[in-house]
């Protein structure tokens, strides 16, 4: 049992982690290594599709519980499940070409299948609406929270103001059509911002590399649902 629950997953993880690293440094003529790496990448594409499935199962489980317990906002959960199930049914029927549900995209004559219709006229506007609301909340939050309370906040405020003004033509109009603000914004983004971003990216990459190493050598086991001491 210990072999199946612990040793085998750790061995598979170590192999899956090591093979791409070895293949990266190995010669392209090392056929066996490259073939194995190629297989692994193909499996990863397949596993990623199953990960989407896991997400769907998780959404269903959590929302069914919410509805059963009549938790606050349960009716939103019911709405979500109705949307999920109806799109899934229409999509699956379309994928296997049942009745009027032929296909999941556009028909050869350019008309929309029911799945495409749902995606284009229900899902897309809903997502766009959700994101559009951010503009209103950001405007309100910026107005109420952006205060020159101390030196750091003042620097942030000035930088944000310059970038906001430099990103719109009004900034140039104020200075008689001369693009000084736009150039200064570019300088801010290209130097101080890029320097900070690069530090963050390098830090995150080092963190990811060290975490990957811990996973490969079996120190990090939380992904198996097991604590280090188990």
């Amino acid at each position, binding site marked *: 049992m210990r072999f199946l629950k612990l040793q085998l997953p750790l061995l598979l993880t170590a192999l899956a982690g090591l093979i791409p690293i070895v293949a990266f440094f190995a010669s392209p003529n090392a056929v066996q290594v490259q073939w194995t790496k190629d297989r692994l990448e193909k499996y990863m594409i397949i596993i990623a599709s199953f990960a989407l499935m896991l997400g769907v199962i998780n959404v269903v489980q959590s929302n069914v519980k919410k509805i059963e317990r009549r938790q606050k906002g349960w009716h939103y959960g019911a709405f979500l499940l109705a949307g999920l199930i109806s799109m899934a049914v229409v999509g699956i029927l379309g994928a296997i070409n049942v009745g009027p549900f032929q296909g999941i995209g556009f028909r050869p004559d350019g008309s929309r299948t029911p799945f495409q219709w749902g995606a284009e006229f229900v899902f897309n506007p809903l997502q766009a609406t959700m994101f559009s609301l951010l503009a209103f909340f950001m405007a309100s939050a*910026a107005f109420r929270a952006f205060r020159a309370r101390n030196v750091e906040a003042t620097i942030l405020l000035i930088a944000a103001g310059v970038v906001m003004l430099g990103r*719109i033509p009004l900034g140039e109009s104020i200075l008689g059509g001369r693009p000084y603000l736009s150039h200064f914004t570019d300088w801010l983004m290209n130097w101080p911002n890029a320097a900070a971003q*690069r530090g*963050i990216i390098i830090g995150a990459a080092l963190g990811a590399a060290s975490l990957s190493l811990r996973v490969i050598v079996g120190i990090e086991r939380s992904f198996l649902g097991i604590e280090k001491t188990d």
Partner: protein
Amino acid sequence: MDRILYWLNVLVRIDRRWIFLLIAAGTVVPIIFPIGFKVSITPAVQALYDKIETLAPDDVVLVSFDYGPSTAPECDPMADAVLRHCFAHGVKVVVLALFPIGGITMADQSLARVLPDYPNVKYGVDYVHLGYKSGGQATMKQMGEDIHNVFPVDRYGKPLGDLPLTQRVHAYRDMKLVVSLATGIIGEWWANLINAQFGIPVACGCTAVSAPKYYAFLQSGQMIGMLGGLKGASEYERLLTSGYPETTRIYGRAGLYTAIKGMDAQTIDHSIILLFIVLGNVAFLLGRRRGSAGPAS
């Protein structure tokens, strides 16, 4: 002074629904009545435009739709402008979608908007739509080995081997440029994974929120150009209409949403936000000078 401070405080404590209303008006009015603010061209946008200009008619550009409907107002005009530029210049285009939440719909819609203006552009010869594939980095890496393996059939179920364009395109080595229109991390992967390992030039069109992190890739040379947010898209539209005067007719069409029109709304909204930030800070600083706690935040 007391009177000014009083009114500033009244303004600072304004019900946020008034701000919402102002932002709504600032967005809707310029879209209905376009103003047409002029934008200056930034080097990152010019670099992408110039890169496509240097391509020969048989060269292939990969356009990856890595965004969903949530960021369509920013990314759609970029996608449309890049596709129009490629078709107008005569380079071949391979389209795909890697973003799971609506990426493929974005690709379909963008092609549907652009293609009617290019009746000579033929499917399979001048462009191919690969469709969507999950897997992110693994899919991108596999495409470096053999695209036909990753996408055995195109968006419409035709084998890639049956299409003249994809008969000669098997991997990144057969392409000259990748343009990723990205909302999340996928744009980064094109730079730090595909450019780094396969050497193909990468450019990115991203939302204004994501743009700061892409400057690091731009500076390091891992990206050759970038369209940052709506402004980047509007700059590209300006370059396109200058370089290809026939596109002026397309961009002047009533009812067509363009970044140039969107920039009017962005300009008004940014100005409203900036005005309120300035007023809020003036009230805050005056209040602090007077020894009071300042306006409520």
